[in-house]
């Protein structure tokens, strides 16, 4: 009888261990290890134990049953100990992992500090470079203006033309230097918005005044529709962004109209400034690349630029003014760029609404 019980117990174990052959039974510690290796929890052991127990109960009172029960208990106890030991080793593993993690964290902190130092160095470098570049540029631009204005005597048309190139190149170099400085400032988060209260309509008028000479000089038409609305934001940065988009519109438009419209959202917490042109337009596949730095799209219009204008505009609008810039265009269909910003920069949030061309 007892033998039968022992067999049942053994076969229950074998079923678990998938050992149906004639091999002798494993030692209890081997079984426990196998259980653990299989990630079997105490529940599996309990099942096996219960299986044995039910057999023992069936043949209650026999010495064999008692033996089987005892060996089953031993197995259970042993397995529990192995489990406990495994958990203990896992726990110390976690503890040492935590220590390693702390070390890695400390190293990361150090690396971060080093990067910050490097970034700071980059900024100092850019600031001093900009100083070094602007000083000779002051002479190049200044003296060529003086000569071109004939302060020092008359010039032949050819001399004027050549000097005009020097002046233009100097100004172009200056705009590159300015853009690079602005980009590095915005990227390093050095620019804090300077909040002023001003009227949206006045700002648009000022922006238009800046480019009206270029617009009319190219024989283009200007349409302005700007509502009156008090804004609390960084006036200079908003003007810079609007001017950037406006001068792009003029640059890429040979005939037709440049329209500027500025209006508030129905919620009243944001304003949108749209600049629409009838220029070359942008291919749909190029639109996502537009705002990347040094992006110069293949275009029939060979326009001078730094390749930083739109990148900078987007950075300023999103990171300083808390708004968004969006472009809608199609090749040969003109472009529309829209800046949407909160009316009050201190609110820093506004309701975006769907827009359509």
């Amino acid at each position, binding site marked *: 009888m007892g033998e039968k019980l022992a067999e049942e117990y053994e076969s229950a174990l074998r079923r678990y261990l998938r050992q149906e052959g004639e091999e002798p039974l494993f030692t209890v510690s081997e079984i426990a290890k196998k259980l653990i290796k299989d990630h079997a929890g105490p529940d599996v052991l309990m099942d096996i134990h219960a299986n044995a127990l039910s057999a023992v109960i069936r043949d209650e009172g026999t010495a064999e049953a008692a033996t089987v029960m005892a060996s089953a208990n031993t197995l259970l106890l042993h397995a529990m100990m192995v489990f406990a030991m495994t958990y203990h080793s896992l726990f110390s593993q976690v503890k040492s992992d935590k220590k390693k993690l702390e070390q890695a964290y400390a190293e990361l902190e150090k690396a971060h500090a080093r990067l910050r130092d490097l970034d700071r160095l980059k900024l100092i470098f850019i600031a001093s470079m900009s100083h070094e570049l602007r000083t000779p540029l*002051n*002479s190049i631009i*200044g003296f060529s*203006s003086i000569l071109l204005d004939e*302060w020092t005597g008359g010039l032949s048309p050819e001399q004027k033309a050549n000097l005009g190139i020097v002046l233009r190149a100097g100004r172009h170099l200056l705009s590159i230097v300015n853009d690079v400085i602005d980009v590095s400032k915005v990227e390093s988060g050095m*620019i804090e918005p300077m909040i002023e209260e001003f009227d949206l309509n006045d700002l648009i008028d000022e922006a238009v005044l800046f480019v009206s000479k270029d617009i009319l000089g190219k024989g283009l038409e200007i349409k302005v529709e700007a509502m009156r609305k008090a804004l609390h934001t960084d006036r200079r940065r908003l003007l810079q962004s609007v001017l950037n988009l406006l001068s792009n519109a003029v640059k890429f438009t040979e005939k037709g109209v440049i329209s500027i419209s500025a209006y508030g959202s129905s919620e009243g917490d944001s304003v949108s400034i749209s600049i629409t042109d009838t220029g070359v337009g942008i291919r749909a596949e190029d639109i996502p690349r537009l705002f990347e730095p040094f992006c110069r799209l293949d275009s029939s219009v060979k326009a001078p630029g730094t390749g930083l204008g739109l990148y900078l505009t987007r950075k300023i609008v999103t990171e300083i003014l808390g708004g968004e810039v969006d472009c809608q265009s199609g090749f040969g269909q003109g472009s529309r760029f829209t800046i949407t910003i909160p009316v009050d920069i201190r609110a820093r949030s506004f309701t975006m609404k769907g827009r359509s061309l």
Partner: protein
Amino acid sequence: MNKVVVIEDDKDNLLLITYILKRGGYEVIPAETGEEGADLVVRETPSFAIVDISLPGINGFETAERIKADERGKGVPLIAITAHAMAGDRERIMASGFSGYFEKPIDPLTIVAEIHKTIGSTPR
């Protein structure tokens, strides 16, 4: 003739400013350091003084403070010229006793008028 003291260590820029101011009807008294410039301003009490911010020795801020600390220099309007204004420079310039500042590059065709607007006077 109205006098202007120009404190600028870059010789090319000094020559440029001299051209511009002469055309504007001023006599230019040049200085290449802040120390020398401050002494000249106090001694000559010019119509105004142009001070470069980055100078060898004492910088433009200290030069302005030195001028403003002197009884004779107190009334001379000071115009700062900077190659590039860093964050906080504008506030520091205005706090150091300057009447205004211009960033390089300056526009020779408009700067004299801009200066007059800043100091609220025209050449006598």
